[in-house]
């Protein structure tokens, strides 16, 4: 049993921290988020080429550094700490995480491009009525000649406005909410019949409603075997959830740190508000939730390579726990700050908004508690 970071992981963390300290202050972020593009491609290029984090957890044979989930955890924590909006989760953890499972030339090339910072992808899995159920797919892909014809609608596809390729789940068989019959396609976003309505999200990202109307796809657009995509998508979404928990760790740590700092400076009734015992205890509870969230993130990250049931139970337990911590710590941070905590101007309010949206991203706490409840009976008994 070992909870320490390797030397490489420590270096990775330090160089990323240094880079973000220099480039990612609150003001630059605010401007980027308010810009037409909504992000900074130059940051992305630098992350790929100068800092070299995009390939940290990807295979060496595709140009990565061959790290694993712990490396992803290290990166995501720092991205959370700096409130980075660029699509590391969407493109690297999910996109490349899926693509690396397939050995088609297109998939391998895409991973290499992602590592190089040349390709942004987004996974279109959710639909207007699917809520968080990844098997609830109404989008269809029907055989058409050698290839496929894609029809359907995907909802709140985060990072899609920045992406040139989409990974899309579509039903090639089976009924709505059936695990079997879901296939995965890699398509160009500018293909005929693909249309998107882009918009900002409340936490400073960008997303799209994507519609497919008779989109013609070649045979090679299908990744892996027909109808067998779900186990892969589930596994990668679990990796993404663990990564989200790590991001939350950075966000929560900042919420605690900024709140503690603020209370030491802010005076009311002639003394720093840090002196008030009620606020002290509330900050202690914020600290405890954050520490416990970090522990759950370690646990989930280190269990990603176990069996599907163990992995999913661990990840859902962690995401449920961390999601609730995001809500309670965020609310406490704002309340302790008072009015100033509600202003666009203070960085804290943006951490609060991101924490709030992490709670529901890739499944709310309620969803993951359900999933954990359903899985726990199948878990092997403890030794």
């Amino acid at each position, binding site marked *: 049993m070992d909870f320490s970071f390797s030397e490489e992981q420590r270096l990775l963390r330090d160089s990323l921290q240094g880079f973000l300290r220099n480039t990612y202050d609150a003001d630059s972020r605010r401007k980027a988020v*308010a810009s037409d593009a909504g992000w900074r491609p130059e940051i992305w290029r630098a992350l790929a080429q100068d800092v070299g984090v995009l390939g940290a957890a990807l295979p060496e044979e595709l140009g990565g550094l061959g790290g694993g989930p712990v490396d992803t955890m290290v990166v995501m924590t720092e991205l959370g700490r700096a409130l980075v909006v660029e699509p590391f989760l969407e493109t690297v953890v999910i996109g490349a995480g899926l693509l690396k499972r397939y050995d088609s030339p297109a998939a391998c090339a895409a991973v290499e491009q992602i590592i190089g910072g040349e390709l942004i992808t987004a996974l279109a899995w*959710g639909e*207007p*009525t699917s*809520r*968080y*159920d990844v098997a609830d797919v109404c989008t269809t892909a029907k055989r058409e000649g050698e290839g496929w014809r894609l029809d359907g609608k995907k*909802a*709140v596809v*985060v990072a899609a406005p920045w992406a040139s390729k989409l990974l899309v789940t579509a039903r090639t068989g089976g009924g709505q*909410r059936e695990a079997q019959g879901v296939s995965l396609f890699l398509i160009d976003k500018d293909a005929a019949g693909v249309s998107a*309505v882009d*918009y*900002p*999200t*409340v*936490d400073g990202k960008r*997303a799209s*409603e994507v519609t497919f109307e008779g989109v013609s796809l070649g045979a090679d657009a299908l990744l892996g075997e027909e109808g067998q995509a779900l186990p892969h998508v589930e596994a990668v979404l679990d990796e993404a959830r663990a990564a989200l928990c790590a991001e939350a760790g950075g966000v929560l740590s900042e919420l605690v740190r900024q709140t503690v700092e603020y209370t030491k400076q802010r*005076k*009311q*009734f*002639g003394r720093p508000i840090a002196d*008030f015992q*009620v*606020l002290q205890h509330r900050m202690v509870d914020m600290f405890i939730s954050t520490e416990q969230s970090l522990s759950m993130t370690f646990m989930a990250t280190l269990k990603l390579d176990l069996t599907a049931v163990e992995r999913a139970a661990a990840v859902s337990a962690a995401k449920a726990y961390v999601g609730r911590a995001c*809500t309670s710590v965020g*609310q406490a941070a*704002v*309340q302790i700050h*008072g*009015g100033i*905590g*509600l*202003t*666009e*101007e203070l960085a804290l*309010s*943006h951490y*609060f*908004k991101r924490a*709030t*949206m992490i709670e*529901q991203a890739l499944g*709310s706490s*309620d969803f993951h508690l*359900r999933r954990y409840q359903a899985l726990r009976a199948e878990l092997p008994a403890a030794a």
Partner: protein
Amino acid sequence: MNLDFSPQDIAFRDEVRTFIEQNYPAEVRAKQDAGEELGREDYLAWHRILGTKGGWSTPSWPVEYGGPGWTPIQKFIFAEENARAGTVPILPFGVNMVAPVIMAFGTPDQKARFLPPTMMGEMWWCQGYSEPGAGSDLAGLSTRAVRDGDHYVVNGQKTWTTLAQHADWGFFLVRTDPVAKKQEGISFLLLDMTSPGVTVRPIITLDGAHEVNEVWLEDVRVPVEQRIFDENKGWTCAKFLLAHERTGIAGVARSKRAIDRLHDIASEETVDGLALDQDPFFARKMAELEIELMALEYTELRGLAREAEGKPPGPESSLLKIKGTEIQQRATELAMEAAGRYASPHLLHNATGGNEAPVGPRSARGVADTYFNMRKTSIYGGSNEIQRNIIAKAVLGL
């Protein structure tokens, strides 16, 4: 002891309901339905209609000042019917905050000058209380007013001034004696917001809205006859006002409406193929919130009944504030949970000028912004921590 409204109360309720149905401005309703931001005139239209209807804009005012002379129960019914119909609220700053102070402490001239236009919606008021250095610790304010003949010259900065961008007049706490102890040396001034030296700067809140402002005062000249009550006795007015400020803070009818809206969202969302409002876990959360609201409603009714018996309102107003805001916030939290992924799009017409095409179900729109916005309720108007301090001291004697 019984729960029934009297026949007179029921007749009154029907009268109010019918009046709202027949007189509420259609163009305001249309904007509300479309989720558009309301402007100054939208707020004032309904106020003016109620003002011309025998003082219905000022339910809490005594008859001598033009109030309608309602019983506590009638006031409750009136508020309930308005919340039920979702009318634009009468802003409290004039009618419920400064007006009672003017009635209690103002001169006959001041009453004649300020009360009638406040009732009729011709004078929009804002509140100059909080300062950057003095939030919950109100008496720590440092805005200075120096006497210069028959004027005060005022310098300082106020903050969290709600809708000051629309205001004609403001009531301000200023320090007129800098050496006196904290609560002494404060005066209560009425200030024409068009006076030279007044600058209103927007504060954009985390939901992107422009609802509050900073107000900068630079050598603003205020005639002495716009001071209410004695010089250096403004804290008396302030305390009096704070006692009135929490009236209606429980927001029971508003929360009922929020819970109805929650049921709407939940009936449109599905989980595991079942409507979310049929899902046992989510239904449990809604039921718990409904029950919390029920408790608050009956606590408020008990207070009203005591008031109707002529007993003074107790410090349970702090209780109403605490539980009322907790419930309001919880309702927005559940709405966001119910909306699921469609809580995420940021589409409202907002201060930075965006006005995106709507996505997702109608009922889910803006839920996150509402959630963010409502975090203010446990901070403003005396934070819930301050309210607990008040109960500890005044009720429990701690």
